[in-house]
């Protein structure tokens, strides 16, 4: 079922509707359905308040109880992340905060989170993607951290589709514009293409920030009498209802035009000032509690701060600085104008607070104060327009147990095994398939995209694309650093959402490990179709269960995340696409290992076990247009052993390059390692060269061993219980599969480069 009814812009009245009016006119009709609330939800609000809500209160509940803000369809399932959380002492703040905070040692903590901005990015690619970056950066800032890097996980329709030519350059341009202007290096991410994303691209943005343990800030309005300060940009009519209307309903087709005003417009310059201003305010000890304004704007910040502090709050909506004087209270509450924050400040420190804001040219206004009434009260033109218990909007929204049913079509999908696909046998056929993968948009060089991002600013980027993970230096003295990777694979998840999600986690875990970092914590962005479709709900429940189980087994906690439902076009959902981010700690980034072959004469060792696993593989999809069977098997113990081996090998200086094997298998990994390091290799394939090259068995990595260290490394592999096989040697200027074929690096490079560069100007 799709929500075409929400496609119209919400009729929000600017006329005053006071609490007294609500009492006096109990029967007045209110546009709750157009605001995305059901009749039951509307009745529930009236039950909480003991009267009908005012228009302003209705605005608050409609956005706070939207799927986007309340997680009403997912909350029941997300509990597993807490219930199955492994015992850990690294979490300083967990699920429920703006972002999870992880202890990385030496007094440092790191906070990171990934969030979707899918629907705005389809409607208006440039601004939608730009404000997606802005929003996640403010989440990190609100934890007391300095944002230090961003990443982006992107999925589009076919690369050669006309609409992708509109959406992709806009999205990339928006991320480039916003992130570059903020001075945050973009250190990695993903780019994938599939027809299922043609009408619903995925734009997931991750931000990571660093703080000292003592700097941690929480979103809580404590201390009655403390002042509530709104600072940053002025409030305008942009993004009104974005959370309830845009993010919590499907695209219906005809209604797209009507949603256009729901997308916000970003000003990264203001956000840069806001970052520096906040950090100076934190440094000066002027902030009791803080919250960013994202989805649901002032409504969300006030209710969450008051609920978080267990207090009340009195707010004068007349004090909110406006860009458009015609806005009424409901619109002010729902506006998603960007680059705004809300702080709780002790009265005697307000002057110092405002001074620092003035230094950074950041407008700041006292709009209210914390009370001990347990009520959120707001006035407009001296009349009371809001009087609600804040927790009822922030925490006590409806929770749905949506029906979930495995679709019958799942059996047909699994039955369509790739075992019958003809494998290439001859040298020329194998060579052609390698070039097909390498020259495809999925396997090709992503430089057309990543060159538009600044990866150098702040001077602490040790690894970025095209390496498997981004690696940042945190402390120049000790070499402490963090590695980050995001992964997801819609094809695997379509075949088996439980296993597919575990494979996404395993891949991100492995990508962090190949740099020499120790995986520590997990974030996720769960992109799915409509939760009202039982088949989608089944995919969702399987994915969550898979992720929670795998995190438990790997001993790394989920620190937070984001759910994006209603990713579908009409009745057709996207492939289930959980994107999993893993954070690892690197003890000394000076020992980092990249993915490129740059040393001649290094032994190439394939770690892990290769089986004939082509279900959901890039090869099956590109060569045969085939998607069926089962995804590769997951073996989390093997992943753990591999990660631990890599950490040891990097610390001991035994390896000079390491590259994760994932989609495209060993073939793509070897080609990428040759190209990024500028050195060829000679590899001796076994009899079944096709499986060797194109299978996507998990828990595998290809490494180049430091010349002279091969014996020590193989002993280490044996001790770690990781299967290891010497398959060749680096050197020369060709990628050669002995006895089968050879490709000069120039030819590889041209095929790789042309994949995207010829499609986008």
């Amino acid at each position, binding site marked *: 079922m799709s929500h075409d009814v929400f496609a119209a812009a919400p009729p929000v009245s600017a006329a005053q509707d006071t609490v007294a009016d609500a009492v006096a006119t109990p029967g007045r009709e209110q546009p709750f359905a157009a605001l995305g609330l059901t009749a039951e939800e509307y009745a529930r609000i009236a039950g909480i308040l003991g009267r009908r809500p005012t228009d302003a209160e209705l605005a608050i509940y409609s956005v706070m109880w939207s799927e986007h803000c309340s997680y009403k369809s997912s909350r029941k399932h997300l509990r597993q992340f807490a219930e199955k959380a492994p015992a850990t002492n690294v979490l300083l703040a967990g699920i429920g905060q703006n972002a999870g905070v992880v202890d990385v040692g030496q007094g440092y903590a790191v906070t990171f989170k990934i969030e979707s901005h899918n629907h705005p990015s389809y409607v208006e690619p440039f601004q939608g993607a730009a404000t997606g970056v802005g929003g996640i950066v403010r989440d990190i800032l609100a934890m007391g951290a300095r944002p230090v890097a961003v990443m982006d996980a992107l999925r589009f329709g076919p690369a050669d589709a006309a609409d992708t030519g509109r959406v992709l350059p806009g999205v990339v341009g928006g991320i480039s514009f916003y992130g570059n*202007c903020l001075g945050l290096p973009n250190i990695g991410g993903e780019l994938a293409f599939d027809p299922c994303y043609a009408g619903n691209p995925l734009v997931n943005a991750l931000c990571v920030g660093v703080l000292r343990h003592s700097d941690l800030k929480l979103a809580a309005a404590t201390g009655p009498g403390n002042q509530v300060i709104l600072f940053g940009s002025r409030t305008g009519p942009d993004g009104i209802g974005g959370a309830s209307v845009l993010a919590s309903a499907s695209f219906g087709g005809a209604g797209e035009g009507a949603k256009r005003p729901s997308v916000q417009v970003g000003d*990264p310059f203001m956000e840069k*000032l806001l970052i520096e201003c906040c950090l100076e305010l934190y440094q000066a000890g002027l902030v009791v509690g803080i919250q960013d304004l994202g989805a649901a704007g002032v409504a969300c910040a006030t209710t969450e701060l008051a609920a978080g502090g267990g207090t009340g709050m009195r707010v004068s909506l007349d004090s909110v600085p406006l860009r458009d004087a015609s806005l009424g209270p409901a619109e002010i509450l729902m506006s998603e104008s960007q680059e705004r924050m809300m702080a709780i400040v002790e009265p005697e420190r307000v002057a110092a607070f405002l001074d620092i804001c003035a230094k950074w040219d950041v407008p700041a206004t006292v709009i209210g104060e914390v009370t001990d009434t347990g009520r959120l009260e707001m006035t407009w033109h001296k009349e009371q327009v809001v009087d609600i218990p804040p927790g009822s909007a922030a925490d006590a929204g409806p929770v749905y147990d949506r029906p979930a049913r495995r679709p019958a079509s799942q059996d047909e999908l699994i039955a369509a095994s790739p075992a019958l696909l003809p494998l290439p046998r001859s040298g020329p056929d194998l060579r052609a398939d390698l070039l097909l993968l390498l020259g495809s948009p999925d396997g090709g060089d992503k430089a057309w995209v*990543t060159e*538009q*991002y*600044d990866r*150098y*600013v702040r001077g602490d980027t*040790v690894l970025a694309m095209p390496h498997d993970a981004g690696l940042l230096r945190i402390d120049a003295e000790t070499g402490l650093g963090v590695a980050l990777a995001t992964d997801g694979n819609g094809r695997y998840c379509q075949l088996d959402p439980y296993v597919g999600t575990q494979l996404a986690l395993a891949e991100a875990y492995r990508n962090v490990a190949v740099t020499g970092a120790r995986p520590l914590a997990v974030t996720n962005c769960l992109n799915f179709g409509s939760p009202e479709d039982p088949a989608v709900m089944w995919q969702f429940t399987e994915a969550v269960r898979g992720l929670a189980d795998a995190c438990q087994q790997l001993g790394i906690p989920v620190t937070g995340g984001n759910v994006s439902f209603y990713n579908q076009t009409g009745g057709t959902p996207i492939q289930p696409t959980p994107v999993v981010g893993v954070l690892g700690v690197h003890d000394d980034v000076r020992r980092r290992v990249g993915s490129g072959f740059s040393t001649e004469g290094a032994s190439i060792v394939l770690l892990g076990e290769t089986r004939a696993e082509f279900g959901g593989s890039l090869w099956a999809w590109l060569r045969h247009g085939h998607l069926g069977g089962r995804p590769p098997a997951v073996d989390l113990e093997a992943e753990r052993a591999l990660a631990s081996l890599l950490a040891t090998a990097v610390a001991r200086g035994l390896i000079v390059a390491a590259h994760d094997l994932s989609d495209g298998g060993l073939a793509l990994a070897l080609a990428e390692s040759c190209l990024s390091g500028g050195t060829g290799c000679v590899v001796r394939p076994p009899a079944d060269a096709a499986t060797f090259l194109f299978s996507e068995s998990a828990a595998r990595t290809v490494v180049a061993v430091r010349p002279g260290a091969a014996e020590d490394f193989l002993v280490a592999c044996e001790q770690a219980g990781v299967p290891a096989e010497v398959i060749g040697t680096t050197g020369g200027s060709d990628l050669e599969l002995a006895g089968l074929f050879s490709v000069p690096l120039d030819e590889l490079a041209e095929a790789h480069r042309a994949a995207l560069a010829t499609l986008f100007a």
Partner: protein
Amino acid sequence: MTARIGVVTFPGSLDDRDARRAVQRAGAQPVELWHDQASLRGVDAVILPGGFSYGDYLRCGAIARFAPVMGQIVEAASVGLPVLGICNGFQILCEAHLLPGALARNAGLHFVTRDITIRIENDTSAWTRQYRTGQDIRVVLKSGEGAYMADPQTLASIEANGQVLARYASGNPNGSQRDIAGVVSEAGNVAGLMPHPEHAIDELTGPSEDGLGFFASVLQAVAIP
């Protein structure tokens, strides 16, 4: 005594921290200069760092040139203070008429981040004397409006005067006229560079350590004989 090198922070400056780190690594003392204070705090040289000063609104560098600190810089530059503008700093120096020409939108219309090679064309300026003319160095380019432009007379005169400081030597990444990556004032003390030498001071975080020469050069230039 250690040389003191000022790094200006405008609202929207981004590579100020990186420039200070490069100054320190070269052995000088970085001094923070704030855009709205009309004081150079007695520094021996000034760097205008990369970024998006004032959001690049109106035109890159067009607002920054009116910042109170710029009046001091223009005055001091006229009597020989070494000044280096990197990326956005180069744009500001052109807007302030301390350097000839202007920077326009990249030919490809996209922001470009790339490790590139530039060739040093003038090894006598305050900022390049530790290089030799014809030397190729590896640095980082990251800009959206980096295409160097000037009218034909200006181009002819800067070529004739040896005011071309560096040229792109691994392909022209942005449509700059005559592959110009950097220029220097006639007196040789004010330099503008579109690529970022401060991101090439450590192989751990950049493509090379070649960029250090700019900072070491100015140390030599301001050394009291």
